């Protein structure tokens, strides 16, 4: 976890350095450390041979020491794949690719087996990728095993089959059934065709190779461009699965191009700045965060480093900010994309222009001195015409040997933004209070803006305040900073800011208090004065407290605007707020328990009164049926009513409505049945009595 964090911080640092749009740094140690972070094997081995190959190749190009355990595990998986009879052409291809770097030994029997299998794959191939893996594998095994004789049967037929996948716009299809074409596939096809040519160059008709040249030219017509000169290939996003992204596509095309250029003696008539534009594209990525992107970038840069079309050279600058105070000199490095040495050449500064101005160059064309020790071209003394500010410098590179111009390519002119900083002299600063009408000076004080000041002035609303100073650059020219402000702050923290204007070197501001009375909200009292002078190119930007001025302003009229309320402490609104105490509703006062119990007793009283009254009336149970059947019904009736009442008691104590209703349903039915029986019996009995 800590290593990953460190790696992430490294990447972050490098990304922050690589912000400059027009400056491309060659590969450096930051890439090497990022590579070690990205290509960390899981438990000592990578997930697939493809990843193993990518890691090994990246380490090889960057010059990172091969770790023995990594090589050992790679050898193990290579020999496993090579020995297994179920490996596909793709597995063999990547195993052999990894082996070209890991250099494990493959015995004769195994290589013979590989060759026969790959030959079978070639004859049985139907799609572009089948051809790619099988032909590529044969090329690799030819380099790796010295004894075996690798022979590609019917090379011209294979060549034509691969060529059949091409389209008129220079792109290639993956197979005859799939109509989608892409530049990525074109790169793969070019590599395959280059492989076929290298295996059996004598058998192939030269005219076929020439037509391939035209295909390449057509493919490069579809190249796309960024504003900073970077060139790249991108396929249209038709189907998400097949889409590779500009980095993968461009590196595939570049691999194909350089492979093809290596096997043919013909001159591919590509415009010179194509390779430089591709180099700018790959270098502009800085350090990718993904292992596959990293491999694509480094592999492509290795192709650019040594190819037969043209090798791009790039300018690099250790620093683009020069300080006049430190007497910095302008240093330029020239190298290949991987940071290797270049043949002898001269760097010329052909012009320097102030940013945003189209005037003539401020310097005349001059050569930079080459310092052998550091390998940089240095301009020792900046011309006097280069003062503090930001400029665009234009460089040209001239190679010493004319034959190198065929091999290397350096763009015509490179424009680089350079900033020059220095100390600005602040002189003749003084502050004065003037009488409004006459313009006569009432009090004048000299200021020392570099040191401490504690000026104390007083003025009323009829007077004016004047502040003036001069700014001069190290070379004696006038200078207009980005910020020149005078701030007046009242005791009640109300602030007013004024911009100090200039004419040439002289900066002056006059505050006429008569006109400013309303702006100051009629606040009289002590005002602190503060002066700010700042610029990106100024090494001694300053923010000084000048002193204070007592202002006497008239009384505010009724309708005058009030000053805005100033926060006491701007951060106080983030402090803790008042605590809320929740006031619960006070519980109702309950009566004392004895009173409640007394009234409970009192409530029972009427019931007793009722019972006594009944007795006094002479209530009897004579009508209670004596015969057994009606008697049981009568009993059941009373029991039923009692049960319902008991159910109600339970309902109040424990049950809920639904359970009660359920039980009530059963009891109710029972009760109705029984009640009906007894009451009809009683009714019949009394009717009999009445009639009798």
């Amino acid at each position, binding site marked *: 976890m800590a290593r990953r964090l460190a790696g992430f911080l490294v990447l972050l640092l490098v990304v922050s350095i690589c912000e400059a749009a027009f400056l491309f740094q060659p590969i450096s140690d930051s890439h090497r450390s990022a590579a070690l972070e990205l290509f960390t094997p899981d438990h000592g081995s990578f997930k697939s041979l493809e990843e193993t190959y990518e890691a090994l190749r990246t380490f090889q190009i960057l010059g990172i020491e091969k770790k023995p355990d990594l090589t050992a595990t790679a050898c193990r998986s290579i020999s496993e794949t090579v020995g297994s009879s179920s490996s596909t052409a793709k597995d063999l291809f990547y195993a052999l690719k990894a082996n070209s770097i890991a250099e494990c030994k493959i015995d004769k029997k195994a290589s013979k087996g590989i060759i026969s299998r790959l030959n079978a794959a070639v004859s049985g191939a139907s799609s572009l990728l089948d051809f790619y893996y099988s032909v590529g594998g044969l090329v690799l095994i030819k380099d790796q095993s010295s004894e075996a004789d690798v022979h590609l049967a019917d090379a011209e037929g294979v060549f034509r089959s691969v060529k059949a996948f091409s389209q008129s716009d220079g792109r290639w299809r993956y197979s005859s059934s799939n109509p989608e074409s892409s530049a990525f596939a074109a790169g793969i096809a070019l590599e395959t065709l280059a492989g076929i040519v290298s295996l059996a160059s004598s058998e192939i008709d030269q005219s076929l190779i020439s037509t391939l040249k035209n295909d390449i030219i057509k493919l490069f017509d579809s190249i796309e461009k960024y504003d900073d000169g970077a060139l790249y290939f991108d396929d249209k996003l038709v189907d998400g699965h097949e889409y590779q992204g500009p980095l993968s596509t461009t590196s595939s095309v570049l691999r194909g191009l350089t492979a093809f250029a290596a096997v043919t003696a013909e001159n591919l008539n590509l415009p010179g700045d194509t390779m430089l534009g591709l180099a700018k594209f790959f270098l502009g990525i800085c350090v990718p965060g993904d292992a596959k992107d990293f491999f694509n970038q480094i592999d492509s840069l290795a192709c650019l480093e040594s190819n037969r079309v043209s090798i791009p050279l790039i300018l690099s600058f250790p620093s683009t900010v020069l300080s006049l105070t430190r007497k910095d000199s302008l240093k330029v490095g020239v190298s290949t994309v991987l940071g290797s040495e270049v043949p002898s050449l001269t760097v010329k500064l052909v012009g320097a222009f102030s940013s945003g101005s189209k005037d003539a160059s401020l310097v005349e064309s001059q050569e930079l001195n080459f310092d052998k020790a550091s390998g940089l071209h240095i301009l020792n003394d900046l011309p006097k015409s280069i003062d503090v500010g930001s400029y665009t410098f234009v460089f040209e590179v001239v190679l010493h040997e004319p034959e190198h111009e065929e091999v290397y390519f350096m763009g015509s002119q490179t424009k680089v933004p350079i900033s020059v900083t220095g100390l600005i002299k602040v002189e003749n600063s003084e502050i004065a209070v003037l009488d409004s009408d006459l313009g006569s000076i009432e009090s004048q004080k000299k200021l020392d803006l570099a040191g401490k000041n504690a000026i104390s002035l007083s003025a009323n609303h009829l007077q004016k305040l004047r502040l003036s100073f001069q700014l001069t650059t190290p070379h004696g020219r006038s200078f207009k900073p980005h910020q020149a402000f005078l701030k007046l702050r009242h005791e009640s923290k109300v602030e007013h800011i004024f911009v100090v204007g200039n004419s040439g070197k002289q900066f002056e501001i006059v505050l006429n208090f008569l006109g400013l009375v309303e702006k100051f909200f009629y606040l009289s009292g002590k005002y602190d004065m503060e002066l700010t002078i700042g610029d990106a190119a100024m090494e001694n930007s300053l923010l000084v407290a000048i002193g204070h001025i007592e202002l006497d302003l008239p009384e505010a009229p009724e309708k005058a605007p009030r000053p805005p309320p100033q926060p006491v402490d701007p951060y106080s609104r983030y402090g803790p707020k008042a605590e809320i105490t929740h006031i619960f509703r006070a519980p109702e006062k309950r009566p004392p328990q004895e009173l*409640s119990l007394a009234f409970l007793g009192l409530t029972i009283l*009427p019931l007793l009164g*009722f019972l006594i009254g*009944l007795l006094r009336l002479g209530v009897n149970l004579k009508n209670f049926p004596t015969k057994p059947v009606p008697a049981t019904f009568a009993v059941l009736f009373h029991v039923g009513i009692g049960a319902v009442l008991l159910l109600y008691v339970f*309902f109040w104590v424990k049950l809920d409505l639904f359970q*009660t209703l359920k039980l009530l349903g059963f009891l109710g039915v029972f009760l109705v049945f029984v*009640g009906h029986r007894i009451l009809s019996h009683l009714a019949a009995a*009394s009717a009999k009595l009445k009639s009798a």
Partner: protein
Amino acid sequence: MGRTSSTKEDAGALFHSLRSAYAATPVNLKIIDLYVGFAIFTALIQVVYMAMVGSFPFNSFLSGVLSCVGTAVLAGKSNFLSPLFAKDLPPERAFADFVLCNLVLHLVIMNFLG
């Protein structure tokens, strides 16, 4: 002086006649009258209690009072029905009606009691 005394005598005579008439009513109706009186009296006691301690669990108070009043009403209904409509509605029927309505009333009361 004479008029007031005659009024008093009249009031006394009226009261006596009521009493004797009441004694002649059948026992059934007297029972029902007694029951109604008992129910109303219970309700009154509850109202007095509420007046003393405040109406905090108002739902309980209401259910208590309304159960008394409700049962009194039902009894009065049975009372009212029997002499006038005795021919149409037998007293047993009225009693069954009374019991059923009371049971329903008490279910509602128990639910509202809380």
